[in-house]
């Protein structure tokens, strides 16, 4: 009888392994967890899109729970996302900061004039240094910061109504 049970070991191992692999199929291999969750927003000194003489630092993002949205005029998905950001800024009053990523100032200004400006201000990160410190690998990306400027959540991709209500808003409320 005991020997019979031993015969089942490979089957059990195969089943357990299969279960793990089956679960693995549901994971998104492109999903890259942020290494900065729970850490302060990287230090920076940047001008803004609107004001090239401005000297903004990470302290400008502190004070209340906020969103930092990484965008660029060359980013097609950003245009798709834009109306939702405008709506979020207008209806919820949550401050949205922009990080204009590897872009040119005239184009960025034209974009904001044309599609409305949901941002308190947009940091102008022309060479992508701050984006790199933040671990950005593609726009749009959106970060939730708590009132102390600690990164609490990262979302990669286009925010739409559904994602805002079911994924990001609950997270914002958690830190408010």
């Amino acid at each position, binding site marked *: 009888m005991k020997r019979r049970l031993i015969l089942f*070991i490979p089957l059990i191992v195969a089943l357990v392994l299969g279960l793990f692999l089956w679960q693995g199929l549901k994971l998104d291999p492109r999903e890259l967890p942020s290494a900065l969750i729970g850490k302060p927003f990287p230090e920076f000194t940047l001008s803004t899109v609107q004001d090239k003489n401005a000297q903004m630092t990470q302290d400008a993002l502190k004070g209340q729970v906020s969103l930092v949205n990484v965008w660029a005029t060359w980013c097609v998905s950003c245009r798709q996302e834009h109306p939702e950001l405008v709506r979020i800024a207008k209806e919820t009053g949550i401050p949205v900061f922009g990080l204009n990523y590897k872009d040119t100032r005239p184009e960025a200004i034209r974009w904001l004039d044309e599609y409305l400006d949901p941002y308190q201000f947009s940091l102008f990160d022309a060479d992508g240094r701050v984006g790199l410190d933040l671990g950005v*690998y593609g726009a749009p990306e959106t970060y939730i910061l708590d009132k102390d400027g600690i990164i609490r959540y990262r979302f990669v991709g286009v925010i739409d109504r559904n994602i805002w209500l079911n994924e990001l808003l609950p997270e914002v409320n958690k830190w408010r």
Partner: protein
Amino acid sequence: MAINPLVHWRQSLLAITLVLFASLAQATIEAMEFRDEGLRERYQHLAFILRCPKCQNQNIIDSDAPIAADLRKQVHRLLHEGYPDDQIIDFMVARYGNFVLYEPPVNSLTYLLWYGPAVLVVIGAIVVILLLRGRKNSTGKQESDISEADRERLNNLLKDKRN
């Protein structure tokens, strides 16, 4: 005016060839200068072991993604600022997580990944050994179960059959 179809075809082929080569040239040329050969070698090693965050199956030396180009530039900059390899790797991991390493580090999260296959081989070997031993034991037992008289009878039967 009638167009000579052969000329037309040749021109298209030339155009296509030119277009193909143009993209090829654009993809591979990236001017990078190094202070010395040692730095170049370290650069190549680092760009080989670092993974492009945007594209899961390419290292940053292979990838054409803009983010890979940024990381190459960053590696180049850090090398010339005099950082050792492990600090450059730490710099990348601090920003992009362990994802950026092609070879994941050994820690409590990755024990299964690193040692799982070896454990499976050991389990397999144990099962095989147990099965083989079981078979040997059972055949051994059968032999000893036969009495001398039975063996005699069996031999006779076999002999009859052969004749």
